[in-house]
């Protein structure tokens, strides 16, 4: 027959006591160190710092895209500001949306942690690195590119025409007298029409093509 149960046989082992002590110490440490951090994150998530950052970025993107190379032609004609206004609004809208998204993620992380649920652990600030480009900004950028291309093309055509005109003026030919008599007279080309060796004005598409020697013919 066994003896009656003794209370000391039912007390916690040293290992259990140590485990409980460590758990209590860790809990106290967590409350002192991490709780304030989570509270700070909560307060930060209610702020608007991200809005300012992203709106600044949107402003820079728009100005970089549309005003980094100011065009005299636009200034003279007074056009283009409506595209800038639209693009700017589009970019600000994207910045606001991204900032709101980041704020929501931060808040969910704080609440998820506070409620003992999984936290996403991503602020979403990476979005700031590749802030989307609004359709309006793309359109304005493209419009500006087309405008620039047109001006370049006009400049090139005008330059080529001027060079060709000057070359035409440089051409000379020897024109014989009316009945083949008398000394030949030197004839110079005009701006719009060169003269051939015989001193005749080159006119008409076929003659000009032949004179240009572009296909190697004479």
């Amino acid at each position, binding site marked *: 027959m066994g003896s009656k149960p003794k209370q000391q046989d039912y007390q916690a082992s040293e290992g259990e006591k140590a485990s409980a002590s460590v758990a209590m110490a860790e809990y106290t440490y967590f409350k002192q160190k991490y709780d304030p951090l989570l509270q700070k994150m909560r307060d930060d998530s209610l702020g608007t710092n991200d809005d300012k950052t992203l709106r600044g970025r949107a402003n820079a993107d728009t100005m970089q895209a549309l005003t980094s190379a100011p065009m*005299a032609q636009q*200034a003279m004609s007074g056009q283009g500001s409506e595209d800038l206004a639209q693009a700017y609004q589009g970019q600000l809208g994207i910045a*606001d949306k991204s900032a*709101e*998204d980041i704020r929501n993620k931060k808040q969910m992380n704080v609440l998820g942690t506070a409620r003992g649920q999984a936290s996403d652990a991503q602020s979403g600030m990476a979005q700031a690195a590749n802030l989307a480009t609004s359709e309006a900004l793309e359109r304005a950028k493209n419009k500006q590119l087309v405008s620039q291309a047109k001006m370049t093309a006009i400049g090139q055509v005008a330059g080529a025409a001027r060079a060709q005109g000057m070359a035409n003026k440089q051409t000379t030919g020897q024109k014989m007298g009316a009945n083949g008599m008398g000394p030949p007279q030197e004839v110079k080309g005009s701006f719009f029409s060169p003269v051939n060796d015989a001193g005749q004005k080159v006119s008409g598409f076929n003659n000009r093509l032949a004179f240009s020697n572009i296909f190697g013919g004479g």
Partner: protein
Amino acid sequence: MLVGAGSFSMLGEAALAGLARQNGGQNGGQIGGLPNVSDPEKTYANITRQEYLDYVSQYRDFEEQMITEAQTDTSLIDASRENAQIASGIAQGVSDRNASRYGAALTPAQAQEQRRALERGNTLGSIQSVNDARIAQRELNQNKLADLINIGQGVNRSSLSQMGSAAANATQRKNAYDSAKAASKAQTMSTVGSLGAMAIMAFAF
């Protein structure tokens, strides 16, 4: 309305001090820098209770604010309207500065056309960005609500699990009590029966 961060921190400290006081009775001081937990069950009960009180004091308002915002927030739409005014001013400023830089003197007709074009572009941009903002706002609010519901569902699941454990423990205790009571009754009856049998035997012989 959410209270300030300062009061939250103070509440956190106060809660911690309160918890330490509550555990003081069953924790006999510190051993080698570690707190001595002589009654882990009661300590655990105190921590569980304190955690909930901390949540209520520090995060309940925050959570309720988010639940309300997820259903009523129109900040993106409001901002898009304000953006229209800002964009108009900036575009006009850029245009004026460029004109000044290149020495452009617009004719009255050109200046009028420029103003009209800017107003037209700004109005179109405003309509577009408000519409975009409406869609974005709805999307963000729905995502926020879905995340909140997800968190709430997780909390609900773990709460029900805790309640299930408590209920199972209660049932187990009741059954153990009933069993013990029945066993005790049976033991009593058995003892009475034995005593009765012994008495009969004693009187018979």
